[in-house]
């Protein structure tokens, strides 16, 4: 092998190792993947959570804030209804991540309380927070709009987003209330396409 190629290969390998950390087996996320974005999340139990922690399986992602009285509880109910439309085997493989717009008020204990109040399944669901700058970036990759309106409330679009096993947006639903049948179909497809874990 020519020495130049060797050096280049070594550089590439070093870069690869640096960007993927311990997960040496995983190739870099595709260019159109949300997982290109590194978001240091913390879940309702105070555990650090990587945005791509569930890479390999599809995931439902959305954003909310806990002091929201009306739409946000409905969002949680809609996600639950969506997962209940799946078979038990399908449901067992589908993770849910809901990230707060309001990191200033949604501390870990506040998220924990919300998780308990809404009786979410903590094995599959995470209510998470990150810093303000990463919140804005995450909303940007997800195409979710939000703006603080000054009295503790946020105006925001509500969307339920399906990421495929590689973190690409595979579906989006803005319907609240009952599960959106077309969206459930997309979730099923994404689960089918991913290898069972």
């Amino acid at each position, binding site marked *: 092998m020519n020495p*130049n190629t060797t*050096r*280049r290969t*070594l*550089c590439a390998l*070093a870069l690869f190792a640096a960007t993927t950390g311990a997960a040496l087996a995983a190739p870099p996320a595709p*260019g*159109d*993947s*949300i997982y*290109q*974005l590194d978001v240091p999340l913390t879940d309702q139990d105070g555990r650090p959570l990587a945005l791509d922690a569930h890479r390999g399986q599809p995931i439902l992602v959305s954003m909310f804030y806990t002091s*929201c009285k*009306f*739409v*946000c509880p*409905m969002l949680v109910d809609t996600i639950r209804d969506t997962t209940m439309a799946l078979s038990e085997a399908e449901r067992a493989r589908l993770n849910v991540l809901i990230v707060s717009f309001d990191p200033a008020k949604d501390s870990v204990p506040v998220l924990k309380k919300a998780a308990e109040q809404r009786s979410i399944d903590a094995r599959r669901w995470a209510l998470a927070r990150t810093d303000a*700058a990463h919140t*804005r*970036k995450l*909303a*940007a*990759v997800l*195409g979710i*709009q*939000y*703006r603080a*309106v*000054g*009295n503790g*409330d*946020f*105006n*925001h*679009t*509500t*969307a339920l987003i399906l990421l495929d096993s590689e973190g690409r947006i595979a579906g989006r639903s*803005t*319907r*609240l*209330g009952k599960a959106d049948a077309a969206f459930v179909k997309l979730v099923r497809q994404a689960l089918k396409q991913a290898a069972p874990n």
Partner: protein
Amino acid sequence: MFNPNRLRALPALALALAAGSARADEGYVSVPAGKMASVLARDANEAPTAVASFSMRATPVTQGEYLRFVTAHPEWRRGRAPKTFTDPGYLQDWRSPLALADAGATQRPVTNVSWFAAQAYCEAEGARLPTWSEWELVAAADATRRDARADPAWLARILGWYARPAQALLPAVGSAPNLYGVRDVHGLVWEWVDDFNALLVSGDSRSADDADKLKFCGAGAINLQDKQNYAVLMRIALLSSLKASDSTGSLGFRCVRPLSP
């Protein structure tokens, strides 16, 4: 470790350093805290928007400066930046990933950059994109007044820019400064802001029977107040229509950071 890519980048780096230094010296100017009636008012809260002090780049980021950035940060070069963060138009006016279109480009504002790319640039110099309110506070000033927006002559001058046909090549940065010492706020390029994607969020969510209404949550709608200020409203309309990975030939950016003590 020897990296052959680095060697190739050296001439471009030297060029960028030589060309960009004059502008870099000019740096940031301070903007004291202020209150202003934003064109974006909230229906429940029409009090003036309070903006904390900050420092802002006196000029939009130039192509020369952006070239230095991509030289130091290969992951942001055209062709390497991921699709999630940039669209196919990213830096499309450059001759190659490390070469501007021509020598005169160094002093022109960089455009064809996505919101993510603009954020990354600002972060690399310990800064961030301004919020809409910060930008709007600065944009309300003329050379002598903090808020010139009630002056029809001033508004007409700004609107004149929108009436001019787009030029094939943007002029260099560095038009006359406003009261804060900030240049090119009007008349050169559109500018990304941190909260670009939330400016027109409106609607109310009190009833469950309308799917459209349910897209929104919060105290209520943001209404556009000062309808006279078309120039600023056009900015809002443009920014609201964009995705964070989009880029256009007339959209650039500048950065802000906290005032140094």
